[in-house]
């Protein structure tokens, strides 16, 4: 089970600091929501967790290994155990749903086995993809072309791809911003249920405070690249959230 730890990390894109000196900690099987206005550094925090960005200051530790100490092979092994659901989904539209789902295994097998899995998925892979698609609610779309699916269905394919990795942890970046409000609740509910069933660590960034309070026992508030609060949800007060957004608004005004 993955245990993530970020120690005093700062990330700069060019000279722009995306996050500054943040500490973060996620235990095995724990789920946490990250809230905050756009540009608060939520996406960067998630990208730190699977080594997609390296901090210029500070370190990231997954389980017992610091990511900067790992060889490229070691880093890939860590990434293979972390499923990521991107805001823009990042599927291959002209492949079938099953092929996109099975491509989740690509970091876990040999070169030819993994590519064969994507283009000519074997019986066992198809059965497993079917089971996972059943869990996310669209088993009948197994062999459909991905670009013929609706936005919500595509998101489910992206979730299924992440689950096909047999991950220890799921990271989801703004999963509710790409679907309509009615779907948003279903998506967050699905992610939290699945991670509870499979005892996965879950880290979701989202705009929607109501959903965040309803589904996550612990919330992290971010603003301007810093962590403003990190508390159990039932200890949070309206004042905390107001601070999060009001401050950011005045900051925008000062710009």
């Amino acid at each position, binding site marked *: 089970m993955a245990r993530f730890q970020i120690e005093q990390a700062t990330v700069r894109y060019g000279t722009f600091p995306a996050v500054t000196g943040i500490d973060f900690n996620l235990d095995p099987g724990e789920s946490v929501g990250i809230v905050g206005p756009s540009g608060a550094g939520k996406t960067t925090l998630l990208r730190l967790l699977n080594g997609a960005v390296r901090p210029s200051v500070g370190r990231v530790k997954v389980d017992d290994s610091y990511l900067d100490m790992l060889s490229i092979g070691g880093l890939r092994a860590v990434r293979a155990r972390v499923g990521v659901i991107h805001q823009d989904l990042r599927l291959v539209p002209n492949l079938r749903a099953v092929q996109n789902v099975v491509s989740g295994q690509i970091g876990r097998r040999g070169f030819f086995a993994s590519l064969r899995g994507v283009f000519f998925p074997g019986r066992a892979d198809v059965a497993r993809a079917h089971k996972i698609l059943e869990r996310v609610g669209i088993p009948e779309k*197994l062999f459909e072309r991905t670009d013929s699916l609706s936005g919500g269905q595509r998101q489910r394919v992206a979730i299924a791809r992440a689950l096909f990795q047999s991950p220890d942890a799921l990271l989801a970046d703004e999963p509710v911003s790409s679907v309509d409000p009615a779907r948003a609740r279903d998506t967050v509910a699905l992610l939290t249920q699945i991670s509870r069933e499979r005892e996965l660590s879950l880290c979701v960034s989202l705009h929607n405070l109501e959903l965040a309070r309803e589904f996550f026992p612990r919330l992290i508030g971010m603003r301007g690249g810093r962590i403003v609060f990190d508390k159990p949800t039932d200890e949070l007060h309206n004042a905390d959230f107001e601070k999060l957004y009001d401050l950011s608004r005045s900051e925008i005004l000062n710009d």
Partner: protein
Amino acid sequence: MSKSSARAIAELRRTRPRNWVGRITGLALLALVVVSWTTHNFGWRHLFTARSAENFARFRREITPYPLQERAFDWDIFTTWLHTALTDKVMAAVVATLALSIAAIVLAAVIGAILSLFAARTLATADPYLPGPNVPHAARRHGWRALCAITRGFLIFMRAIPEYVWAYLFKAMLGLTAWPAVLALALHNGGILGKLNAEVIENVDPKTPRALRALGASRLQIAATAIAPTALNRFLLYFFYRWETCVREATVLGMLGFVSLGWFITDAQVRTNYDEMFLFILLGAGIILVGDLVSAGARRLIRRAK
């Protein structure tokens, strides 16, 4: 895997959407390639014999500049050779090649632009863009449809016959002036530009043409005011793409006797002055690369003009 899910998967697989066109095309082309390689004897064996290896070696000697064939490379000798090989006539042929391509593509653009008006299905109908005040007569409807179909067929025919063949045929009628070469290039490329431009016209957003039509504008007025300004950029992009191939073909048409670089290439080949022939071929490649650069620059300008 449970039995019921295995059955469900089999059923989903049976009813999955299939791309028959793609599959049949793939299989047919694969079969065609296999049949082509196996039924026709191309004589590949003769290419890999000691004799052809010798021939290649001889050829490699012969394409090195003649005064340098028997000695080490010397810059002075090379430049003197270059000066004698690149006579004023050759340089004039380089300019003529460019002039041929330019005259041809301009003529092709005129032909293509005019014919595309009759080949675009949105414009070449009895009632373009909106039903008019009165229903057009059946004869008019069928007349337009026939005109459109004939124009399209004519465009494909123009394009189906290669420039080289057109030039060969026109040469017998017009003699060795520049016209046969220009006409040949213009006809073939006019066919291509006409077809492409018809597609551009068909893809123009119908809102403005409809509004104009509702105001009672004629077909020509719609084309001039609502279609030309939006379609012009794309048309110019295609114009420069085709100009690149015109430069290529203009070089080669000289092999039929027209004044372009190709004539000097054939001439050097007939005299078995392979060193000069090779130099002229490289010179032709140089013209083409320069043409590509100019065209890419012009296309960038046009893209920015959007």
